[in-house]
């Protein structure tokens, strides 16, 4: 069993706290992304797990065995680097075989494992070549094959797709998912790209300023962000946050009254996904002043304001709204996230 327990890991660089007591549990065979903007500590956390960086305090356990004091090679993990780190002076075959050679595996096993990994990543035709003759995508395949060839208990990936162009990234993403699903390896995947994290992960840990703001299933994180940061970081356009007055436990959205969580003050922040609305006639709908309307083909993107606060909403492409219009919106009450104006944290979902 290769579940990973990250137990109150802290890391300081001088006065700067890169990680402030991060705790996470990753189940055996699970694919978890560490998602966040640059400088949030995600790569530092990954490097601590790998053993390339030391933590200031805290523990990391793989399958109930503490690995924090071990050198990287004794941790039973493999890693894929952002810039591939495929050895240029070795053929693709020797690159994929590197970990096995270090384990002093016999030639028959090396050959079998290299061929298996190469087959999974479709790099058999390049086994005799040197990496410099390969494209970025092919090199990344070599890096992944090298990692899988040792059949690691845990696979760490540090922004493995960010050096690829957009089209290739999409292709590799799909392929990675297929390969890793069949390998069943516990994977920790660092990325700043939310679509990558959403598409690949069983769970996502959203990190910000050295803390995990939320960990959960991609859809859960998307629909019910735990904090204002998570809502704003995930989704394109990001979640809208509208500060609205509360009276008698209710918020008026046009003619409709929305129930708020219990025990809130006079004001609450209404977190609204751009697509959780539909067009409604005024005055029943909530009034939105449209500043710019952008037909995107697949949908219509509207930028404007509600209660004089900036919002972005998405309507079906078939709607005809023009820049400068004032429109009414009906909100999908099930998809509203209520947040505290003071702490920025969300309230538990209100059961209708």
């Amino acid at each position: 069993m290769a579940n990973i327990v990250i137990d109150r890991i802290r890391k300081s660089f001088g006065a700067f706290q890169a990680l402030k007591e991060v705790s996470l549990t990753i189940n055996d065979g699970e694919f978890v992304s560490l998602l966040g903007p640059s400088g949030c500590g995600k790569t530092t956390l990954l490097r601590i797990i790998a053993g390339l960086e030391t933590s200031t305090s805290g523990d990391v356990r793989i399958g109930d065995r503490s690995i924090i004091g071990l050198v990287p090679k004794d941790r039973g993990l493999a890693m894929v680097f952002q810039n591939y780190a495929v050895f240029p002076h070795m053929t693709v075959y020797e690159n994929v075989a590197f970990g096995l050679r270090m384990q002093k595996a016999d030639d028959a096993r090396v050959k079998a494992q290299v061929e298996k990994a190469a087959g999974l990543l479709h790099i058999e035709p390049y086994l005799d070549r040197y990496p410099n003759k390969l494209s970025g995508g092919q090199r990344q395949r070599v890096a992944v094959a090298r990692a899988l060839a040792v059949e690691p208990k845990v696979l760490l990936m540090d922004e493995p797709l960010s050096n690829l162009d957009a089209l290739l990234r999409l292709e590799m993403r799909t392929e990675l998912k297929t390969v890793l699903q069949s390998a069943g390896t516990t994977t920790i995947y660092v990325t700043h790209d939310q679509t990558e994290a959403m598409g690949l992960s069983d769970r996502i840990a959203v990190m910000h300023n050295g803390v995990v703001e939320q960990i959960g299933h991609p859809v859960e994180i998307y629909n019910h962000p735990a904090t204002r940061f998570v809502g704003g970081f995930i989704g394109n356009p990001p979640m809208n946050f509208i500060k609205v007055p509360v009276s008698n436990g209710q918020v008026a959205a046009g003619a409709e009254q929305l129930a708020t969580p219990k025990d809130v003050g006079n004001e609450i922040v209404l977190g609204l996904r751009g697509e959780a609305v539909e067009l409604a006639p005024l005055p029943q709908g909530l009034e939105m002043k449209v500043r710019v309307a952008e037909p995107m083909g697949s949908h219509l993107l509207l930028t404007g304001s509600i209660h004089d606060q900036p919002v972005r909403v998405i309507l079906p492409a078939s709607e005809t709204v023009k820049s400068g219009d004032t429109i009414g919106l009906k909100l999908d009450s099930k998809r509203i996230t209520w947040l505290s104006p003071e702490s920025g944290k969300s309230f538990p979902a209100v059961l209708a």
Partner: protein
Amino acid sequence: MTQNRPWIPYLLILPSVAFLALLFVVPLVQTIWLAVSDNGVPSLANAERMVTDINFTRSVKNTFLLTIVVVPVQIAIALAMGTMVAKVGRGRETILWIWTIPLGISDLAAGLVWLSILQNTGYFNSLLFSLGVIGRQASWLSYQTPVALFIAIAVAEIWRGTAIVMVIIVAGLNQVPKEFKEAAEIFGAGPWTRFWRITLPLIRPALQSALILRTVLAFEVFAVVYALGGRNFPVLVGEAYNWQNQNQNYSVAAAYAVLIMIISLAATLIYLKALKVDPERLP
């Protein structure tokens, strides 16, 4: 702009080409001619006179011996220095600066520094005397102590000439992204394996440059030897100097010069062949 005036690059390069042609190629041709002619007629008389001279065999032997001992030690020390300094965070620049100080000292001055340490009344003897190791002045640099003299010259040469190797090696090490070493570490390579299997192959071009430069310079060794050993330790350039200045025989001196050039070229070709750098296998 230069597309309209394609001669501009050539014009700008011309002075340096003319300068080198005038002050390098012409003397080179003259020297070669001087070495292989006698009274304006092609002849091997000078070469013959060179090889039959009593000091010739010794100078060839000494020069090669010195090169074979000094260059590998310098490469090894430079690799160790470069690898160590790579681990240093703060103060790295200062350490490198101090390590490169010998670069700024002329070879004759370096020889004189070591002479002041190793001569009979030098610092080394004073130290040994004060420690009670020796009872009276010991001589290290005389013709009666050839081994000590050789070691003294080798040490002085290593002290003086390692910095340039280190500079080249450090530049080479800086070109190797740290991810290569990290990847090797993750996949189970220990420090020695990382050094031999990852670092060394990746700094091959720098290693090649350092070896060529240092070997060519080692065959030209002169001032340090002259300061420490005088004619007790004949080397090729020293012999050329003696034929030129003391014997006033420019032709035999030219023959020595040509011999040194041939040895240097041969060494360079051997390195280029042995340490062939395949651009395909570089980062």
